[in-house]
């Protein structure tokens, strides 16, 4: 074999491995989301349930480029697949939806509002746009301490979230500081019921990159290979010191805003548009057509995901709920400065 053939083959292997690894997270994300939907319908989940259906490829492809323990990640409401790719345990995800006291949020916060900030996964607040500058701050701290090295931070946001002042301020400030911030905008055409036309007036949100003086990229977010490629490139650019990267992926939200919403405003025209493909179905087709996995192997993977998800939710359901009587009702770290009730 010539050197060129060897290179081509190894890069093809790498591509296949990345594809399969990301697909695995997409599948786990989808199976977990489906499980949540059925638990919600059965009245087993208090509060909202928001699904990432249709966004798995985009979400997993970003997180696939991140290094748990090194990079900073701020997932949002439709990033079950990405959280999985970044190493979140299914049990911790299930615990947060099911209100287990053993979960990372201990029942104090729920559903998608979860994370482990000291280990690089920020716990979103609901206020859209607010997480971006916090990722910047984590990167800035590392730079100040001389530990930035080739770290990146990634912040996820929706089309609607780009309309916030917080988004604008954060992207601009990160650009001024030339921070390695990757902003992943998932344009799923709607913000709750509001379509793109009522959200922004540019043709493509990536046009804003020029205004901020940052590099911009667009991708068909239904296409896993394309998502892997765009994030590989954008993350590499950020790591190499080229400043913030604004990535815009186009897709359709294949669910209601939350499970309480049957989304009557999503019309047939949207469902037939090119962005409306189901990334999980398309990725699976690619795997089969490329001969990377057999139907039987894919079925096994599906079964394994289902079993792990079922086990995680079953465990979380059996765990104790938070007990108000033994709860510490102190919001401060500096407990002796807290007013009101002391530790129980």
């Amino acid at each position, binding site marked *: 074999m010539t050197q060129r053939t060897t290179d081509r083959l190894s890069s093809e292997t790498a591509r296949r491995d990345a594809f399969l690894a990301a697909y695995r997270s997409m599948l786990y994300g989808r199976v977990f989301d489906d499980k949540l939907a059925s638990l919600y319908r059965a009245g087993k*989940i*208090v*509060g*909202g349930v928001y699904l990432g259906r249709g966004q798995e490829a985009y979400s997993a492809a970003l997180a696939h480029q991140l290094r748990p323990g090194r990079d900073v990640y701020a997932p949002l409401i439709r990033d079950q697949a990405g959280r999985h790719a970044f190493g979140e345990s299914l049990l911790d995800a299930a615990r947060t939806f099911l*209100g287990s006291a053993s979960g990372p*949020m201990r*029942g*104090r*916060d*729920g*559903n998608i*509002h979860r994370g482990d900030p000291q280990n690089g996964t920020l716990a979103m*607040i*609901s*206020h*859209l*746009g607010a997480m971006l500058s916090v990722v910047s701050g984590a990167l800035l701290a590392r730079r100040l301490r001389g530990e930035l090295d080739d770290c990146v931070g990634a912040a996820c946001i929706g089309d*609607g*979230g780009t*309309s*916030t*002042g*917080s988004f604008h301020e954060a992207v601009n400030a990160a650009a001024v500081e030339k921070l390695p911030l990757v902003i992943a905008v998932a344009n799923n055409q709607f*913000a*709750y*019921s*509001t379509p793109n036309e*009522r*959200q*922004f007036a540019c043709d493509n949100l990536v046009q804003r990159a020029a205004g901020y003086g940052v590099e911009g990229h667009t991708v068909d977010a239904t296409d896993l290979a394309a998502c892997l490629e765009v994030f590989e490139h954008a993350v590499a650019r950020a790591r190499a010191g080229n400043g913030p990267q604004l990535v815009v992926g186009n897709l359709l939200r294949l669910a209601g805003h939350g499970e309480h919403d049957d989304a009557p*405003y999503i019309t047939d025209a949207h469902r037939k548009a090119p962005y409306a493909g189901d990334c999980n179905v398309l990725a699976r087709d690619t795997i089969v057509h490329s001969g990377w996995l057999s139907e039987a192997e894919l079925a096994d993977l599906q079964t394994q995901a289902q079993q792990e998800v079922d086990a995680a939710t079953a465990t979380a359901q059996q765990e104790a*709920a*938070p*007990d*108000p009587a033994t*709860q510490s*009702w*102190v*919001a401060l770290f500096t407990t002796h400065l*807290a*007013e*009101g*009730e002391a530790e129980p």
Partner: protein
Amino acid sequence: MSITYLEAIREAQDRALAEDPAVFIYGQDVAEFGGAFKATRGLCDKYPGRVMNAPISEDAMVGTAIGAAIEGMRPIVEMQFADFSSVGLNQIINQAATLHWRTGTPCPITVRLPSGGTPGSGPFHSQSMEALYAHYPGIIVLCPATVEDAYGMLLEAVAIDDPVIFCEHKYLYYHLKAEQLPDESLPVGRARIARAGQHATVVAYSAMVHEALLAADQLRQDGYEIEVIDLRSVKPLDTDSVLASVARTGRLLAVGEAFPWGGATAEVVSRVASEGFHLLDAPPQRLNAKDTPIPYHPNLWSVHRPTAGSIAAALHDLLRL
């Protein structure tokens, strides 16, 4: 026919739009979709062009409303949740609240805040923000506790030539029903005796009025008649009605769902202490939420905020003082 608190809010906006062409509604998902809670359902079709979807830009939503108000319009801004009004805070407290005082130009905007806790809503979809807004001069803050007030006070809010923060309680949206809408209601700034009594006064507003009424039912079984005052409006605060009640009962418990530091209950206690000290037979008491963010889990949430049970316990303590 029965009408819910939420329907009353929709009906009030319908009537405001019908009666005054200067009224329009601006907020996220308020048009065809009718809003996250359906408080504007059908209004966009009925009043074409006057019920507009906003981008997720609370600062711009409020700023736009203020600009329109300067031009003589009477905008209603819907926040999707009260909690997100924090993003529009600057425009409300620095622009809207100061406009008339600085320039003599009135600022008739109404900002609707779907407020308060419901099980499972967590730290960012549960807040009661009335105290924050009431702190600033130049703002009126209303907290209706009944279907009738949700309707009448919202109509009045839109008619008032000043910024009004309209705190509507999400827990009451579906739980409260009335037979019909009122023809007239008490004016803004006047409290209401929700239940007459002689042994102690509970001053409350919004959803806490109903918890207080339940607590009063419990205390009646022990032979106590509790007077429950529904403030209706947090600012202006009807100090006279509160003092008159305390003059009858000699004991005061102020109850609010908001955080304990400062706030409406502190204001009530402070006014009674300074203006009605001689009326008191016992130290005036307050009961509020705990001093932590609002928890997600219903087990924690139901202990975090005052309930009929904790109000009843606080009343028993007060009656022993």
